[in-house]
């Protein structure tokens, strides 16, 4: 698409939207089509005065000869652009696109005193709701995607449609004191598990940037998770399925291009690595295999608790249209458990689920604590055991891993196996194990 066509398209879109600000609703003076004389007078009088004032003002301009037409046009457009956005305020409470509540109108007085944050609140309210907002944001996104590399402060696009969040490419390094805290926390959990006869495991999923090949940037620093794994290896062996996932990556995608999660195929590789580790403690353990599933491919992302297929969260952060994110040529491997009808799953709190599968090959009870990476992982893990409780450790209220937070729930559920699972970026949260 040429630059001219692109700009012409955007200009037309903006102008049409500006027109729609005024023209979307017919202006009725009164329901039923009757004209209210009072209302008409109330509207007509100030309009007349305003026009008269404007005309007289325009006539009193200090003009020397005729003003350049270009300036007249420019000023008209300039002021129209300034005025249009406040002409129509979006009254919705929620933005679907942004997955959030829009800012409410702030109160000028709170408890009888002036709300000193009124200005701030008003800015948020207006910024969320002004007319043409969507069009201007769309124009911005189109400008960014005019080139195939897109970036903003939160995310960017790499080669071959790979997208990354800013946090995915920047890892915080551990200080010695933090490594000590991790070690102490793990020892605390280990003692707790030993005391309650629970087998405890931690799996850290390698970061996405190690699986996105041929990128414009070169990753040179090793995964920070390795520092932690190395620091605690004599106390607690952490499962890090890097090799398994690299091998799996040769066949299919283990990470989504437009989302920060691993795919179900990636999760399956991680699952097999964990099962190998668990087999050391439970020699009779029978993992599920691919034969237990119907395999299918999609070009969409599925990684969250809702199990919906969509374009992906990184794409959303970049504010890209769906067609820029969903590439029909990129297919991700998905699984449906063949005996799904024999499994009951109950979402009992936020994203926390209990799975019951009486026909499981292993009669153990398992507890899985982790972040959103547990969702795809549970597609295999939850069908391995008789009963599985999956707890999302990162909620809007709390994202800590402290024993005190889970202790009662663990003792209440009495699992045979306790697994912590999260991706490398979440490793820093291991420091909260201690408290």
């Amino acid at each position, binding site marked *: 698409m040429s630059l001219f066509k692109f700009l012409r398209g955007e200009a037309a879109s903006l102008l049409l939207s500006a027109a729609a600000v005024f023209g979307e609703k017919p202006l009725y003076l009164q329901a039923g089509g009757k004209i209210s004389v009072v209302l008409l007078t109330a509207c007509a009088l100030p309009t007349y005065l305003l026009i008269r004032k404007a005309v007289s003002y325009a006539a009193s301009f200090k003009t020397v000869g005729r*003003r350049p037409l270009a300036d007249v046009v*420019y000023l008209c457009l300039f002021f129209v652009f300034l005025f249009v*956005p406040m002409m129509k305020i979006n009254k919705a409470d929620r933005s679907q696109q942004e997955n959030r509540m829009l800012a409410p109108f702030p109160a000028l007085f709170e408890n009888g005193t002036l709300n000193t944050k009124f200005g701030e609140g008003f800015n948020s309210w207006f910024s969320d709701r002004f007319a043409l907002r969507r069009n201007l944001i769309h124009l911005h996104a189109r400008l960014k995607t005019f080139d195939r590399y897109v970036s903003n402060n939160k995310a960017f696009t790499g080669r071959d449609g790979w997208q990354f969040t800013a946090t995915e490419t920047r890892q915080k390094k551990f200080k010695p004191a933090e490594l000590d805290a991790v070690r102490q926390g793990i020892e605390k959990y280990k003692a707790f598990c030993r005391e309650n006869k629970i087998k405890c495991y931690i799996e850290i999923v390698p970061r996405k940037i190690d699986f996105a090949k041929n990128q414009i940037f070169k990753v040179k620093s090793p995964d920070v998770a390795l520092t932690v794994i190395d620091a605690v290896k004599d106390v607690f062996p952490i499962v890090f399925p890097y090799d398994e996932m690299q091998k799996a990556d040769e066949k299919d995608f283990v990470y989504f291009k437009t989302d920060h999660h691993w795919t179900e195929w990636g999760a399956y590789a991680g699952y097999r690595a964990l099962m190998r580790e668990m087999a050391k403690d439970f020699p009779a353990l029978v993992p599920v295999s691919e034969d237990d599933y119907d395999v299918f491919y999609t070009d969409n992302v599925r990684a969250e608790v809702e199990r919906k297929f969509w374009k992906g969260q990184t794409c959303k952060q970049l504010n890209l249209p769906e067609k820029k994110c969903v590439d029909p040529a990129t297919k991700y491997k998905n699984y449906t458990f063949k005996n799904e009808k024999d499994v009951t799953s109950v979402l009992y709190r936020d994203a926390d689920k209990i799975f019951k599968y009486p026909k499981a090959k292993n009669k153990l009870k398992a507890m899985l604590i982790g972040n959103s990476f547990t969702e795809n992982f549970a597609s295999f893990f939850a069908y391995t055991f008789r009963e599985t409780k999956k707890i999302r450790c990162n909620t809007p209220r709390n994202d800590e891993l402290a024993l005190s937070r889970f202790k009662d729930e663990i003792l209440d559920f009495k699992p045979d196996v306790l697994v912590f699972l999260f991706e490398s970026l979440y490793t820093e949260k291991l420091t909260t194990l201690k408290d």
Partner: protein
Amino acid sequence: MLFSSVSFLFMFLPLVCAAYLLVRRELKNDVLLAASILFYAWGEPRYLAVMLTTILINYAGAVLIDRYRSRGKLILALSVVADLSFLFYFKYFNFVLTNVNSLFHAGFEPLNVVMPIGISFYTFQAMSYLVDVYRGETPVQKSVYKLALYVSLFPQLIAGPIVKYRDVADQIDGREESFDKVAYGAKRFTVGLAKKMLIANTLGAVADKIFGQPVLLFDTPTAWIGAFAYAFQLYYDFSGYSDMAIGLGSIFGFRFLENFNYPYISKSITEFWRRWHISLSTWFKEYLYIPLGGNRVSKRRNLFNLFVVFLATGVWHGAAWNFVVWGLWHGLFIIVEKATGFAKKEGGRAFTALKHVYTIAVFLFGWILFRADTVRYASQYVRRMFGVFRKSDVAFDLSYYVDRIEILAFIAAFVCAMPVFKNMLTVPPERKVLYALVNVWMILLFVLSAAFVAASTYNPFIYFRF
């Protein structure tokens, strides 16, 4: 309220413009004063009292100086001390306290104060008024409202230019708005907005990505790009704001003096300070350098005066040691240039090119001091620029930090830092085609900038960390 915010651009500005341009002449100052007070109180109304107190002190001070000329010096001193004490309390007190604590191992609790926005600018404006009245260079303003308008005039309230009272005294009393001024102002505002949104913010994101990391995590080319990105960000951000202020002033019939004149093409640091933040350097020249004796003293004293001025310039910019060191860094080169006559030396092309390189190097390293959180980080950063730092932990190469849009912004920043398009806004209307093209370009710039402003409000909630 920021000029580049949605509320300002699409609510405050059009309403104020409409109210201002439509009311009777005698009400225009009232509209501007009310708008300025609302503008200031919008973000944090509590600090409005500080600004209003400053206005009252300076109003009373000037009236008293005018009435009791024999005691003018004492009244001036008291008023200036009152002005500076506000500035000290809000801006420097905690800095001094922290240093006292670390020097004497004391345990004084820092104050829980936030610096009122624009306090450095309006305090300096107010002080210039007092001094001018004392010197008899301007008549005292009898109307407190007009003085309040001068101090609080919203176009230049929070980021300058620092307008001297004598430069706008006549305009406050009587100015003319015209179609030409409004058209010029709207275009100048657009240029400033584009500088801020399209160049400064784009390159600012590059600079933030690089300066936000330990120097171990980037390589030498990246360090250079970070330094240039920040240098351009600072220039386009600040000069963009000044352009917007001058443009808004023009819409309201004022004429503010220029604040920047292509500083990055300077051939010496002396010249750089004649082109960079002109209103501040002029202020220091008139109200500090000349009272100290200027250059009509011995050479040694003159160099000392320059040292004091640049120390004050550094301190004015912020309450942190890196600003002090930055001020002294510039002062050092000014003193050396003054002592050797370097700034006035002429030579061939090679010599001129060398002077450019020298000047760029000095201000670039100066900006690193300015940007770095600590002097230590700045020193590590400079060492990284020259590869004098171990490279074992380099995480990403340059291509991670700069995409093609950002490269485009770099090119635009580089070209526009030179006076290539200097006369764009003064093309005579007789050159119809060029004139129309400039206006089309202005409309395009405005829409693009508005898109960038709007995009800053796009804030999806991602269920990632939580």
